[in-house]
């Protein structure tokens, strides 16, 4: 059940109506739990049971941690929770990858051992809820939050359907207090929720799915396409992945708002970032802050030499790449971003006492150049953001060595240029804060007409078959 499907719309309307008709907060939590379970079970009932089981286990472990005074036992319990969660993740998502890699390594040194690969379905959103569960256990261990006493509330923290399968990765400290607060229907929140949902729906249906028409055939078989077509497809992919994922996040935030919950924002116009460090402050914020708080800082962060910080950055970004997908291509993607971050850090260090250069970089021309360079670097890295290393290499080869191709893209590039122009306009409006002003100052009929038009355009511009959200596979 995807957010952009009719089935979800019906599901959400039913849940929404019953939710706000219920007189007690407790009942509402139960309703959301049941709805969330149904939402997940609509894909696979057995996997829904798996999520529920690990959630209950995490609840018990955290309660035990709170109950004991023994530091040793606490350490053991947090380690148990982390290992259990990562173990489930590794089994379902990384088992075949590790075995395959081991097998290839053994073959390379002449050993002919072969391992049997399991035919496993990777539970939807496992990477997301695993990180939520780990952060909860670690926060309880660190004493940052108290273990939740109420099991349904805790289960709702993990299973809440708007963020369950593709984030944002919520923190217990942000979410659990909301489950305790009595909810009152607010038209202002409702309006905010509708705005977020419509924005996300438009991004997904009118832009991301349309961009997929350009990028998918090229990413499937780049050998058929010319240099120009591959560049266009990569540009389309960069737009697609942003609109797909941020569109999902916006819809999740919107649904949560309509139900009286606030989720963290996941994107802040990342392609306007003037450097790659800033890009990661704007892209998938809930993941980057998670990696910072639960991996980078524990590794020592930047409290040491430049090389020590660089090492930590590389470790974090490599694992971040692996988090996205169980293939070497995603690992390379992570490594490349690590290199970009390290390179940027060294450049910043080098430019520290070069006043003239820094002044120039801060001019509007310098800023635009930095932004363009950052976008180009990030875009080139997207080549690796798909399962096959071979395809990535082929694409790069054909991009930088002029090559003729036989196949034409399925759509005329004109609609791509219009989309880019439209996105640039939206980014300008967003960056100048105009939308916030307009949403307050515009007369209600104009706003209403805007909502109706956005929804209609999202429907009209949706291409042939709706594409699944890219981040569902993670």
């Amino acid at each position, binding site marked *: 059940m995807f957010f952009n499907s009719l089935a979800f719309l019906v599901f959400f309307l039913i849940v929404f109506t019953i939710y706000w008709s219920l007189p007690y907060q407790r009942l509402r939590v139960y309703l959301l739990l049941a709805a969330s379970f149904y939402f997940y079970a609509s894909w696979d009932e057995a996997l829904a049971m798996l999520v529920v089981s690990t959630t209950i286990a995490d609840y018990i472990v955290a309660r035990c941690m709170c109950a004991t005074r023994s530091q040793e036992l606490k350490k053991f319990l947090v380690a148990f929770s982390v290992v259990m969660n990562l173990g489930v993740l590794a089994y379902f998502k990384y088992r075949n990858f590790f075995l395959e890699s081991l097998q290839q390594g053994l073959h390379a040194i002449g050993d002919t051992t072969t391992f049997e690969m399991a035919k496993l379905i990777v539970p939807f959103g496992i990477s997301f809820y695993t990180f939520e569960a780990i952060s909860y256990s670690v926060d309880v261990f660190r004493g940052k939050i108290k273990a939740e006493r109420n099991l349904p509330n805790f289960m709702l923290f993990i299973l809440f359907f708007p963020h369950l399968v593709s984030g944002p990765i919520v923190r217990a400290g942000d979410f659990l207090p909301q489950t305790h607060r009595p909810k009152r229907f*607010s*038209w*202002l929140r*409702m*309006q905010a929720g*509708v705005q977020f949902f419509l924005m996300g729906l438009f991004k997904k249906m009118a832009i991301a799915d*349309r961009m997929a*028409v350009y990028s998918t055939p090229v990413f499937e078989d780049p050998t058929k396409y010319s240099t120009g077509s591959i560049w266009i497809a990569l540009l389309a992919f960069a737009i697609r992945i942003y609109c797909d994922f941020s569109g999902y996040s916006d819809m999740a935030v919107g649904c949560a708002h309509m139900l009286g919950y606030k989720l963290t924002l996941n994107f802040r116009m990342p392609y306007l970032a003037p450097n790659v460090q800033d890009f990661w402050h704007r892209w998938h914020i809930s993941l980057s802050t998670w990696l910072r708080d639960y991996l980078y800082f524990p590794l020592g962060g930047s409290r040491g030499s430049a090389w020590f910080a660089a090492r930590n950055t590389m470790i974090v970004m490599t694992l971040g790449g692996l988090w996205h997908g169980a293939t070497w291509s995603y690992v390379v993607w992570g490594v490349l971003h690590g290199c970009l971050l390290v390179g940027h850090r060294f450049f910043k260090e080098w430019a520290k006492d070069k006043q003239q250069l820094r002044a120039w970089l801060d001019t509007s021309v310098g800023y635009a150049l930095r932004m363009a360079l950052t976008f180009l670097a990030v875009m080139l890295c997207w080549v690796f953001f798909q399962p096959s290393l071979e395809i990535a290499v082929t694409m790069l080869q054909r991009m930088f060595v002029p090559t003729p191709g036989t196949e034409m893209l*399925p*759509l*005329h590039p*004109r*609609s791509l240029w219009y989309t880019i122009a439209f996105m640039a306009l939206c980014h300008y409006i967003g960056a100048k804060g105009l939308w916030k*002003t307009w*949403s*307050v*100052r*515009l*007369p*209600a*009929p104009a*706003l*209403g*007409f*805007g*909502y*109706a*038009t956005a*929804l*209609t355009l999202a*429907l*009209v*511009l*949706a*291409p*042939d078959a709706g594409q699944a959200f890219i981040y569902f596979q993670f």
Partner: protein
Amino acid sequence: MLPPASCRPTRRQAVRALGFGLFFWLVLQVGMIVAVAAYPRLRDPLYGDKAVRLLRRALVEPRPRTIVMIGSSRTGFGFHGRRIEARLKPIRPESIVAYNFGIPSSGPITHLIYLRRLLAAGLRPDLLLVEVLPPMLGRYPGRTPLEKLWFYPDRMTYDELRYLESYGFPRSETEPKWLHSALNPWFSLRFQLAGRVVPGWIPWSVRYDWSRGTDESGWNTPMRTTVTPAEYAKGIAQAQAEYEIYLRDLQPAGPALTALTEIARLCRENAVPLYFVLMPEGKDFRAWYSPTVNQRLRFALDEIGRHHNTRVIDCREWVPDHEFSDAHHLLRPGAEHFSDRMTDEVLQPFLQGRGLQ
């Protein structure tokens, strides 16, 4: 006048904005539902665009003599109306309209619907040619009629949907799809709409602009005059995958044959002379019919002819192989070849009153 910038969002404004949003959304939906009902061309541009052009040419005073050929994409590429008109001019000085009503992925049942629409619009052709696409005529387990594979309920009116029930399209299957498209027209008809307004924004395969890009006589001019042997082989392989299985043991029966019979009945009732046409096919394609299948086909069509005074024109061997793109779709020289022979051997004699002898 905008309120001052310092003002904060209010509950009243939120309620009104959402209310207006819902109101405008409903207005847009209802507006489109009304527009689709008033202009069926929006719903079915494949039919509508060709029909508008045909009726504009045929329903004028003095009435021209009108020859219409209804068929599939084979007809669309093959029946070169303008060439036929030019060829007939020296023999028949009066105005003649030869119109190509070939629509891709259509068979006898769709052709029946289109004929009913054209008759309802007041058209009475002087001669109607209806293509018979043999694979469509069979009865196949779970796939009868074969047109189900390409049938789009959203292109039909509700009355047509009811009418089609007796042709193997149960309402339990077609009605939900039709209702979905009727109640959510912006989404369901998005390709029809976008294909008309911003065709470059959607892939060519879903543009619904087949009937818009034709010449004045409805001919879908083939883009190419030749194909390479490799392209031809690829085309044949695709045609084989699509049709051979149905031709091997074809037994004309079921809803598609009933539809052909109904076409013949309607024509007789409206005094429209009717010829069934078996379109040209390459040697490879013809090899998929066994002699028995050929006999069965001939028998079924003759049977309709006996009851309704129709004739069958078997053109399958009229065009050499190199004039096809894939052994059943004609290239430009093939279309010219076929149209010339059709004019000389069928249309001229008919117009000279020697047709239905």
